[in-house]
């Protein structure tokens, strides 16, 4: 709060006091008073007015400066009214009451939305589980009645299943709840599971698969890592070229373990590379040939962040995705 601003705010009392001084001067002058007496009276009026003004200014300045400083230093600015400095004038009291009331209202609204969102998430999760029963049933029917037609339907069912899985993980990634368990799992078992899931593609497209050094354990949530790997391998399978080949291997370093998924597919153009994790970004490849939604890699990145893994995608000839599992991060988290 600048003094000049404060004065501008007090423009009316300033005008009034000056008017008062002029009137008193005129009256006293008309009464032919002694010049010294007139000067003393006017001086006293100005002095008392100035003192009260300066005193009032400092009271406000200290209050608001302290408040602003506190506001900068607290995490939850919503709670500022709880820690206001001592109140020495009436406006501050009113300010505090207003803050308290608006804040209360805001918190109530936020909780209402939180509750609605939580409800919606629960509904989605329930729906995802419900829908799996008819899909499972259709799947079995197809296996019991195999034909060219059933193969086609199976391909579509697999796609539906993938989209449903995406919905589930999307809701999981958007909510603050921690519904994962970190434990030691073998990379091999997870990789094998996802490869097996894509068996049909691997065999049909005659993709050479090279698995190396996967007999290693990392700290992760199995289901989440399965989903993450599924997205990456799915892309590798989707964007193949001649003599397709996918290599998956792990590297143990001093501070981390890296899981690398490398393909010799069409790759990602340099302009697109920084944006592959953006929500809804489909890139040149995705638009050209395939119906990409731009959600898969976005979710991959988000889930990796939540689990404390790092993910990087590089592309020169083909694409190389690296997931890094820091070795000490969880013990560090526990220490905190």
């Amino acid at each position: 709060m600048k003094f000049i601003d404060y004065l501008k705010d007090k423009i009316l009392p300033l005008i009034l006091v000056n008017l008062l001084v002029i009137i008193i001067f005129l009256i006293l002058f008309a009464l032919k008073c002694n010049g010294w007496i007139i000067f003393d009276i006017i001086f006293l009026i100005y002095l008392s007015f100035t003192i009260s003004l300066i005193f009032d200014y400092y009271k406000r300045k200290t209050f608001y400066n302290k408040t602003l400083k506190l506001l900068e230093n607290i995490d939850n600015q919503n709670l500022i009214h709880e820690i206001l400095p001592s109140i020495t004038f009436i406006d501050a009291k009113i300010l505090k009451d207003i803050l308290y009331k608006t804040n209360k209202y805001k918190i109530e609204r936020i909780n209402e939305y939180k509750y609605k969102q939580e409800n919606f998430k629960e509904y989605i999760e329930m729906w995802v589980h419900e829908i799996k029963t008819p899909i499972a049933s259709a799947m079995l029917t197809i296996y019991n009645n195999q034909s060219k037609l059933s193969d086609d339907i199976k391909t579509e069912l697999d796609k539906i299943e993938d989209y449903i899985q995406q919905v589930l993980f999307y809701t999981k990634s958007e909510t603050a709840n921690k519904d994962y368990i970190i434990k030691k799992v073998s990379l091999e078992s997870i990789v094998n599971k996802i490869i097996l899931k894509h068996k049909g593609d691997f065999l049909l497209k005659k993709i050479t698969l090279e698995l190396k050094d996967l007999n290693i354990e990392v700290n992760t949530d199995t289901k989440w890592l399965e989903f993450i790997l599924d997205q990456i391998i799915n892309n590798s399978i989707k964007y193949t070229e001649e003599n397709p080949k996918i290599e998956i291997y792990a590297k143990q370093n001093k501070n981390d373990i890296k899981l690398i998924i490398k393909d010799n597919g069409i790759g990602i153009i340099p302009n697109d590379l920084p944006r592959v994790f953006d929500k809804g970004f489909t890139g040149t490849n995705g638009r050209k040939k395939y119906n990409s939604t731009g959600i898969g890699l976005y979710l991959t990145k988000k889930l990796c962040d939540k689990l404390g893994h790092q993910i990087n995608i590089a592309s020169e000839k083909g694409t190389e995705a690296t997931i890094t599992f820091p070795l000490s991060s969880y013990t560090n988290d526990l220490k905190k």
Partner: protein
Amino acid sequence: MKNILIIEDEEKIREELKNFLENNGYKASLITNFENTEEEILKTNADLILLDINIPNQNGMYLCKELRKQIKTPIIIVTSRNTEIDELLCMNYGADDFITKPYNPQILLAHIEAVLKRFTPNANTYITYQNIKVIPAKSVIKTETEETPLSKNELKIFTYLLNKRGIIVSRYELMDYLWNSEVFIDDNTLTVNITRLRKKLEDIGLENVIETRRGQGYIIL
């Protein structure tokens, strides 16, 4: 023939699953009345129980725990909830395996096979062919006088072909089977494996065991 008990309240799935298991060399029993599920299960003499966790009138996990107290029959839990927590819970309640809906039926078969294998001590089971015995537990071919070790892939290929004796098995079918058992080999590797297997068979005096039918696949007669 192994008897598999299906606990599933969805009628359509139940029937299809029964068909599917029967098409794949198992006997399947069903429970249709879920008033007294536990008693019904105990009445059936099954070799393996496929337990859907969302059954009416009862908590599936609790049922699994109760069953475990009374019988040793392997239990595979089938559920549509696939979080880590669910899996851990199932294992804690004494299930032997856990598979999530919607499952690829062939993967379900692989799980069933694996669990059954764990529960049948099979050091002594073997397949005979002419004058040799194939012993999967030791991964060897045994003749009167000697034992020839087989690699994991060779063993899998040989036993698969032997089990389908007299039927042509296409390369695709063979690869499919190998992939289902998590042996991810490509076309060339399959050829190499078959060649090696033939060589090993020739070394013990068995010529032309695995015949090639051009454009169709392999057959053991």
